[in-house]
């Protein structure tokens, strides 16, 4: 199994997810602001307005949860990018050390 990744590309993808997060926040915000004035006669008939508001708020919650999931994936990609870079640095250091006689190592 090989582990090869381009950290710059991973960060670019994470930035795409940042943009998606902003849109999900915007969508959730709009859905949570859906409001219909209460019906003074709601006891007499079907209250379409309240049903729509309940429904919109359910979807707002779901959209915010999707935003958090997107954020976690973006964080995971950035962490992976950093881990790849650190691994590369450690490998380069080990290679340098291996190629340098013991007495001349700093």
């Amino acid at each position: 199994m090989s582990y090869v990744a381009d950290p710059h590309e991973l960060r670019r993808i994470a930035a795409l997810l940042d943009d998606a997060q902003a849109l999900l926040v915007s969508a959730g915000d709009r859905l949570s602001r859906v409001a219909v004035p209460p019906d003074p006669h709601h006891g007499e008939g079907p209250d379409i307005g309240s049903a729509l508001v309940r429904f919109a708020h359910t979807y707002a919650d779901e959209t915010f949860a999707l935003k958090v999931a997107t954020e976690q994936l973006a964080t995971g990609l950035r962490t992976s990018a950093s881990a790849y870079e650190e691994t590369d640095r450690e490998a380069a250091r080990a290679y340098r050390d291996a190629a340098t006689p013991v007495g001349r190592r700093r």
Partner: protein
Amino acid sequence: MILPRHRIDELRAHHDALLGLPMTPPGMVEFAQLVTSAIALSRPLTVAEIEPGRVLVEAAKADLRRALELIQGATRALGSAGEGTTRDSAQRGLARLGDRVDVVAGYELHQPFAFGLSTIGEWVAYLNQELVRGRGVMAAALAGIAQLTDLRYFVPNEFGKSRAGAVLGILDCIAAYEHFDRTAVDAVTMLDERAADAMFQGDYDRLDPLSVLVR
């Protein structure tokens, strides 16, 4: 919202009162009052109160679609960003996230709201059209009665014809209201069932944000 049911009850009462009117000049005066009131009770409805919500939902859907495009673009880009278990795991997570956003933006959100907001506007337009027709019939009956201005020449047959016209107009309006009311009950029931399904679907833990990915 939208349809106050008391309008139906009052119209029914007007209908019954019209049928019980005496065929006399005083009855004609009462007729004019009842029909005027029935015309007022059959005034067109408005959907202005749901319009701001419709605009918000349309904008939210557009945001969700753009977010979906970005997530799908990220999933594709990740395919050429390298290889390994981390990449594979991230790609699977992104694909599941994209699927879920697609469901929210595309079907589950779109269908009920197309049903709930845009279609409600169409229902109200249809109802208003029927109300306008019923009001026209009642107004014609009122105009017919207005021509019998000279009570010395009161003609019971003409009064009877006007009353029949007004009763038909009221019945048209009651039928249109009842049809709208039944449709609205069905819509509310369906919306509530969908919301309940969305909340209790699978083992969804609302405190775990990533659980949306495994539903």
